[in-house]
């Protein structure tokens, strides 16, 4: 089990290294006029040159990358070229909003999709048909379109929720709830149906297994068979879907946050990439990839716990 975890962490680190390398070199193309952009049109060529050397842009790309890696390894991601705010600090003020949004949505999707998926698999009939149809419709509507519809109807027209988030440092719980309710609903609706559909097929697949019949023949009750045996074996499929949705949402919230004016990572990502703020972009990408790697690791661990065969190999 320990080697299994270490292996996963190791491959995660390799992915992290590959992605930071790729991103850094991609951003090289955008940093040609950066000093001029920072200083504005009226800066003298001398000022621009001074800024370039201050940012280290006069050095070759490999040297710059080596410096960045050296600092990053000590936890120093540098400061934003435009705001001079330390990257880590900007990220840490934005991250909680994004994580609150994504994690809440995923948890709600996990619970609801399990309930709905199991009900559809066991009862079949009309519940099943509704779930299947809803899954198609849910897939068909992009979540940001749904979010735009929500914000237009419930926030702007009806005024049930604030159209602009009131989350700021030190905001109370009420502000968080009011600001996150609509975006969470939008994310949950668009993710729920396909997750429920996956749970449904996984449960049906398990119910058809021979061991279920044998458990019945041993006098084990239907409830125990369903919740102790079937659901456990069906869980890895559900977890995989949830982890993919989580990754998708980390990207998707960029748009959602913009629609609801939430001060999360999304706004930071848009702003930093538009300006070509290399340290900040690197920070956003790395934090996102680290979160993805952690989530994948957790899913692998959960699968290992659920399925003893995985644990061995």
């Amino acid at each position, binding site marked *: 089990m320990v080697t299994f975890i270490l292996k996963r962490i190791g491959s995660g680190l390799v992915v992290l290294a590959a*992605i930071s390398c790729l991103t850094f070199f991609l951003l090289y193309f955008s940093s040609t006029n950066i000093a001029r952009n920072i200083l504005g049109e009226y800066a003298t060529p001398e000022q621009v040159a001074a800024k370039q050397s201050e940012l280290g842009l006069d050095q070759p790309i490999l040297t710059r990358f080596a410096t960045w890696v050296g600092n990053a390894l000590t936890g120093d991601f540098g400061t934003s070229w435009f705001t001079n705010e330390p990257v880590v600090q900007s990220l840490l003020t934005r991250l909680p909003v994004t994580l609150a949004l994504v994690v809440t949505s995923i948890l709600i999707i996990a619970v609801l999709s399990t309930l709905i998926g199991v009900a559809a698999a066991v009862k079949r009939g009309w519940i099943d048909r509704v779930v299947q149809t809803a899954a198609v419709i849910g897939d068909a509507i*992009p979540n940001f379109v749904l979010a735009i519809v929500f914000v237009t109807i419930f926030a702007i027209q009806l005024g049930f929720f604030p159209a602009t988030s009131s989350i700021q440092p030190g905001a109370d719980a009420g502000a968080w709830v009011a600001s996150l309710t609509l975006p969470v609903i939008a994310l949950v609706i668009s993710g729920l149906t396909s997750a429920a559909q996956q749970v449904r097929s996984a449960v049906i697949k398990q119910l058809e297994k021979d061991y*279920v019949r044998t458990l019945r023949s041993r006098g084990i009750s239907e409830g125990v068979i369903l919740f102790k045996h079937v659901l456990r074996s069906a869980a890895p499929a559900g977890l995989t879907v949830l982890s993919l949705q989580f990754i998708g949402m980390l990207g998707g919230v*960029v748009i959602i946050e913009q629609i609801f004016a939430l001060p999360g990572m999304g706004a930071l990502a848009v702003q930093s990439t538009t300006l070509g703020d290399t340290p900040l972009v690197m920070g956003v*990408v790395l934090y996102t990839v680290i979160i993805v790697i952690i989530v994948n690791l957790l899913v692998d661990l959960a699968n290992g716990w659920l399925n003893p065969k995985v644990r061995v190999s």
Partner: protein
Amino acid sequence: MSEPVEIKASTATLARTNVFKRILKNPLGIFAVAVLTIMVLVAIFAGWIAPFGENAANIGKTLSGADSVNLLGTDSAGRDTFSRLVYGAQTTLLSALLCAAVAIAIGLPAGLIAGYYSGPFDSAANWVVNVLMALPGIIVLLTIRAAFGPSVWISMIAFGILISPGYFRLTRTAVQSVRNELYVDAARVSGLSDARIITRHIFSVVRAPIIIQTAIVCGVAISIQSGLEFLGLGDPTVATWGVMLSEGFKNVYLAPTLLLWPALAIGLAVGSLVLLGNAVRDALEDREKVTVSKRNDPPTVALQMQRGPRKKKAANVEVGTEKHLVKVSHLAIGYPQANGTLKPVVNDVSFTVDRGEVLGIVGESGSGKSQTAFSILGLLPPEARIMSGSIQFDGEYTVEPGEDTVNQGRLSALRGKRISYIPQEPMSNLDPAYTIGSQLVAPMVTVLGISKAEAKKRALKLLSDVGIVDPARTFGAYPHEVSGGMAQRVLIAGAISCEPDLIIADEPTTALDVTVQAEVLDLIRDLQKRLGVGVILVTHNFGVVADLCDRVVVMQAGRLVEGGQVREILGAPQDPYTITLLDSMLENKKPMTMLVSQGGTTS
């Protein structure tokens, strides 16, 4: 060699037209095809349809409502919304196609090569795929935009690369599954080059899933691209739905309909693509379903939740028959067909089993012998219907005459406790997620109401009773850690754990090695003698019958053709089918005389 290829090709064409017809039968499919056709036509003829140019601005008339000149009003720069919507269709659809094309161009060949040759290319490609799949798409696209500017085309090429793993995985899996098919081997042996094999045989397998995937990818591409443009990151000089959406959102307080039209267009386009993908999938699955029902497989098993709706007292059984442990009378079982009728799989079957007696039910596969056995256990699939007849256990009906399903209320009191079951395939009948011990302990705790510690003690004793050398080790092992023979012993231990009166064994040795078969049969015989339990042994093997059974009934095509004492049936079979079955034994198995003498010692 060319002949079979020809046939394959022609059936594929046939299937394709059928699939297309089926898509058009599905109302959602028609809707999707219609919407997409209209959009494509609009995109192609945009220059003729749109009254204004995509960026033709009338500064004097901004944010106006709909009128006869501007059918859907104008935006904040005075540009005609309708014209922009029409030109937007062009850019949006083309960019989605570009994205899909890039993804296919990368994913398909990579998947073909990785799946066909495997080896180092496969591992390398898989690593890249894992990296790509770990990337949150939008963040990457933002970075690409920062590097290369706000071009729709560049971001769609990048997104095509990001999304290519979908095609890669799909193709790789499909290719791996057919690579070792006989017809591919045949093609290889007959000297076709790898390239020919891939294009001719393998490509036909992946075609359908790729069409489905492409519909979905185009939908995702449109939605991602619109999302990016909505963020204000699109190219402002090109009219796309996303740019319009962004413009509309900025003016949502002043002119809400500006938001409505592009949102509707995006929703319709993405929705139709997803619906189309689903319709193709359904059409393909329908085709599979037809072939399945032709093969007449039993329908899928869903959880039986009809947990004894009526627990009313069962009617009294016929006087004089209560002495039988099991009495099956004129039983018929059927499954509903598509046309609403019931197709019988068991017809007018009657037999009895007494305490301590071993009855064999013999027949070839599809003869209804397992269905009969499962009806006694009450574990028929939920679709199954009792068409006539009755089943009684120990003087009480479990299926009364006139009932059309097995009464789960009455059977759940018997199952596991008085009637138990030994399955055919040992490995698939243990839950891989739990230790063998816990799977033995749980039924005893539930059924006998004893403590866990007590149940564990009994389980260890049972394991040693069924001939397992190191019971403690097996108790703690997971099913995948033991051999098939050992797993079957575990299942037998489970079957006798609650001291049943009747054991139903469904081909208990078929899945085992020949040497293990004999041991397991010995074990069942010993236990049966020692515990004095009644056994119904379902088998296709007369050798097993001769070895274990007192009496035997022979089934063919759902009917009983013959029944009686084992010695009589083996010695002087009356029915031609029984004779055929016995003759087929003689050719491959041990000589008959030995079987008879063995049968003589057990009866």
